[in-house]
């Protein structure tokens, strides 16, 4: 195993950490504004919960990076690379559960035909319909996440970081929930009582969708799945190429690869260890990404054939 954080990604990682702190600061400002204007609108409540939940990936990322830097100890001899996946699983479960709860809630308020009251409020002695403040808060809430999401996406690809990638994708798509919320509020304003609950349903569906996607990715990694592409369950090209390369080098052996955080670990069964190996020289992909190949181990051949 090489050092915990390869020098190649040190700068990107620092930048990602900085962006995540910015994300938390912006999201807190959005959560505060939406909370102040929330009233009794189900769509606003759902949008607010979504914004609170969108803090989770940022926090998980910061926490995971903090642990990842720690050297292996006697009690954790493999280091802490997979704290990331573990935290990600927790976040995915939270998203899925909240998405389901909110979806049921908005469905119930549709069935009960609940008519939402949005009263006027007084600001500086003038009556203004609270709905306009809700629309303003929602419009504000669409801007920072989209910008931050766009900035994080290329970093996530270079760092091969699932949490950061999911976070960036969720934020990039965040303007759609803001839009749904605004449509819901304007709908109520025009006298369509159901607009609010429908908007809430759309937003909660997007929360649930994010949760399920994250759940599938986290489970694949925790179950020692073969390396996947970021944000997807497809097997990754770099991993497949590495496997082919190892099979070529060790004919007749069995080769298996797994993801561990952002790294790939390989095991060759049925070949004897050649002593020191330069992992970089074995990497079939772009040299700037050779840091991903973090460990090569040798083991006796197993009776079960897993290379098929």
């Amino acid at each position, binding site marked *: 195993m090489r050092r915990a954080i390869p020098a190649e990604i040190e700068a990107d990682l620092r930048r990602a950490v900085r962006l995540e702190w910015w994300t938390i600061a912006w999201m807190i400002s959005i959560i505060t504004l939406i909370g102040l204007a929330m009233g009794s609108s189900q769509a606003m409540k759902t949008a607010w919960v979504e914004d609170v939940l969108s803090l989770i990936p940022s926090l998980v990322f910061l926490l995971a990076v903090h642990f990842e830097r720690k050297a292996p100890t006697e009690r954790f001899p493999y280091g802490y690379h997979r704290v990331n996946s573990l935290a990600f699983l927790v976040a995915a479960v939270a998203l899925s559960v909240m998405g389901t709860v909110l979806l049921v809630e908005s469905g119930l308020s549709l069935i009960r035909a*609940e*008519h*939402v*009251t*949005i*009263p*006027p409020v*007084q600001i500086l002695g003038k*009556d203004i*319909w609270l*709905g*306009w403040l809700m*629309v303003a808060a929602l*419009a504000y809430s*669409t801007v920072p996440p989209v910008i931050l999401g*766009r900035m994080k996406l290329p970093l996530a690809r270079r760092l091969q970081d699932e949490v950061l990638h999911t976070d960036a994708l969720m934020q990039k798509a965040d*303007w759609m929930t803001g*839009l749904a919320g*605004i449509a819901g509020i*304007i709908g*109520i*304003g*025009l*006298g*369509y*009582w159901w607009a609010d609950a429908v908007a809430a349903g759309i937003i909660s569906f997007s929360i649930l969708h994010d949760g399920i996607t994250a759940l599938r990715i986290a489970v694949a990694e925790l179950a020692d799945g073969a390396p996947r592409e970021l944000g997807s369950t497809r097997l990754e090209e770099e991993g497949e190429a590495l496997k082919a390369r190892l099979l070529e080098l060790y004919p007749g052996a069995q080769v298996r690869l797994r993801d561990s955080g952002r790294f790939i670990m390989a095991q060759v069964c049925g070949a004897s260890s050649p002593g020191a190996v330069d992992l970089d020289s074995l990497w079939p992909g772009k040299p700037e990404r050779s840091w991903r190949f973090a460990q090569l181990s040798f083991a006796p051949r197993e009776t079960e054939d897993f290379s098929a």
Partner: protein
Amino acid sequence: MAGQRSAAVMNRFFLLATALLVAGCDAIPSDPDGTLDRVRGERLFRVGLIASHTPPPDGAGNLLQRLSRATGAKAAVERGPAEALLTRLEEGDLDLVLGEFAEQSPWAAQVTLSDPILANGPIVLAAAARNGENAWIALIHREARAVASAAE
């Protein structure tokens, strides 16, 4: 590519929102069940007065007068017990219920209460309207506030 398209969609959306904001200030909010339009059309609104007072407190009369003036409609007042009147309000048989409510009244979720018209400790005189009739509610809120500030 997708980024440009989403930016274009967003631009168009904000244009639309601004247009709605300018054009819609009168039309928004409006009532899902058309209470305010009906009151103006029939020149009548149906009021339930919770029968704990004889004669009714001043604030109640003032509010009804102001609502009449604002809508050009007459108030048809009937008296009754709170539960009966509020249940009928919820069902749309009444447009307004006037009475005394606790500040943390459990009815506040079922119907929409105005700000206090007259505050007397924890029990306040307030107007209740059916949930979601946002234009009618906006009018009641405005007039209730006017009555309250005139009484001070």
